[in-house]
């Protein structure tokens, strides 16, 4: 009896190690913050924290949506293009002053862009049957191209109400975009954790064949994940247009790379099925803070990609090790 109990503690501990990356992430983040703020107290100043929150909110919102796609074992790398084209559409509608389109309609139109391109991705992957990486590589190029054609020069947005959407502060210091991030996070977390749809996303990533055998509509669920990813990219696009007061065809170039880094670092396995949104949220904070640290340390912006790349590779190596450990323990 005693022995069985000892064993059970041991096994639980092992499971925790393998299943959950969250404690590790949290500890890493805390150590990081404490060390950096000891070196440079500016890092924890109000202004610095504000700029971190503003910076991480948009990539954060987008990565929460893309997490669904990666959990099914697919990729969506067209997010940057969806964001750019949303910004063009929104800015165009707002600059057609003669029409005087209400802001609510403009926002809905922006969200529709994500819905439509997400559906195109979903169609290519699930109906035509193209590998998701290739399909979204195609839409990435197509919609980036269209965005460039229609933007010409950048489109400047003068509407003050619209500009407030992405720039306002709550209680004077909390950026509204950060509030959106938290609201979207809670909503998506509940869906992923407590609904059948969420369970099926994990099941498909685990073994799509078995999921189908048990009556799960694999294609329909995968289709929906691409729509979610598209719509969250559009939300980020609307907010970016509002923050910068601009619609541009070259917005969010290379975002696919940032977003995948966030997801993988947050413990979302690139082979699908493993990971949670809590990990992604912590990872959003970690990456957002790292960028801010680099800025404070006067590291030129051109080095950011270098650090992103290193983090991505490290995160993928950790992911591989975890997956392999999982496979080994099957026998």
């Amino acid at each position: 009896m005693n022995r069985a109990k000892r064993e059970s503690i041991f096994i639980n501990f092992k499971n925790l190690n393998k299943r959950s990356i969250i404690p590790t992430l949290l500890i890493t983040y805390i150590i990081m913050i404490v060390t950096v703020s000891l070196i440079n107290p500016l890092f924890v100043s109000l202004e610095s924290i504000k700029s971190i929150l503003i910076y991480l909110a948009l990539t954060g919102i987008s990565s929460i949506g893309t997490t669904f796609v990666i959990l099914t074992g697919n990729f969506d790398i067209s997010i940057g293009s969806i964001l750019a084209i949303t910004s063009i559409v929104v800015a165009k509608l707002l600059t057609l002053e003669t029409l005087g389109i209400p802001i609510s309609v403009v926002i809905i139109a922006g969200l529709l862009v994500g819905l439509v391109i997400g559906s195109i991705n979903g169609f290519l992957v699930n109906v035509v049957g193209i590998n998701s990486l290739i399909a979204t590589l195609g839409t990435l190029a197509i919609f980036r191209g269209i965005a460039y054609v229609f933007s010409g020069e950048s489109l400047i947005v003068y509407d003050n109400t619209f500009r407030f959407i992405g720039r306002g502060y709550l209680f004077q210091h909390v950026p509204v975009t950060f509030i959106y991030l938290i609201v979207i996070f809670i909503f998506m977390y509940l869906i992923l954790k407590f609904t059948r749809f969420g369970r099926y996303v994990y099941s498909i990533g685990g073994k799509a064949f078995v999921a189908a055998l048990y009556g799960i509509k694999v294609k329909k669920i995968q289709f929906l994940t691409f729509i979610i990813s598209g719509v969250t990219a559009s939300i980020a696009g609307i907010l970016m247009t509002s923050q910068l007061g601009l619609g541009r065809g070259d917005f969010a170039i290379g975002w696919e790379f940032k977003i995948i880094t966030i997801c993988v670092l947050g413990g979302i396995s690139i082979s699908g099925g493993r990971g949670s949104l809590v990990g992604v949220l912590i990872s959003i904070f970690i990456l957002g803070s790292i960028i801010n640290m680099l800025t404070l340390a006067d590291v030129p912006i051109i080095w950011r990609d270098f650090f992103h790349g290193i983090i991505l590779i490290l995160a993928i190596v950790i992911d591989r090790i975890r997956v392999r450990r999982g496979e080994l323990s099957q026998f």
Partner: protein
Amino acid sequence: MEKKVVLEVKELSKHFGGIKAVDKVNLKLFEKEIIAIVGDNGAGKSTLIKTISGVYKKDEGKIFVSGVEVEINDPINAKECGIETVYQDEGVISILDAPANLFLGREPLRKDFLGRAFKFIDYKYMRDETIKLLDRFGIELKDINAELSNLSGGQRQTITVGRAAYWGGRIIILDEPTNNLGVKQERRVLDLIKKLRDEYEVSIIVISHNIEHVFELVDRIIVLRNGSKVGERLKKETSRNEIVSMITGVAA
């Protein structure tokens, strides 16, 4: 004493191109009976059960469940007819836990406000039912929410087989249930299959390479060779030698 026929397959054929993987096979399964389908590699065992369970679409023949002809076009049809199949290695999603696997595709919703308004899943009910079911088969998991990849092969097999029974399958097809298992775990799974028949009163078709296990478990043995049925014997009227010679086609 006339026993009820729960499953009858008449003249069932399945071709792949010019190859007759299953050629005009007839078989009957009585209630509370365990039968084995044996044969060499490529004899058509797997194709036969995959055709019955809807993974492949049959080319010719008829399938009757409890005397009524049924059309089985996909695995969901088969489940609706009460035919549950447990495939080797493919039965579970090993990164999910036992409750998630037991209720895969049939997750119960909470009965309170959260369930009605937001369609939240009732995890507690799933856990309780899983513990009850595993308890019945003599398995106690140290952590009910552990990924199945952390369990032994025997425990995983119990969950797959238990799931088939839990969902009220009247006919359970087991594809190589003792493959890849240790000796002790083999024993457990064999006992589990017998228990399934006795307690849940289901009829079982077992596919196995292992003649010892077949002789221990089943009432009747059906031998396939090159896609055709070459013989059928009651266990008490045959011997291991006879079955082996039927499988290989070499006279004993």
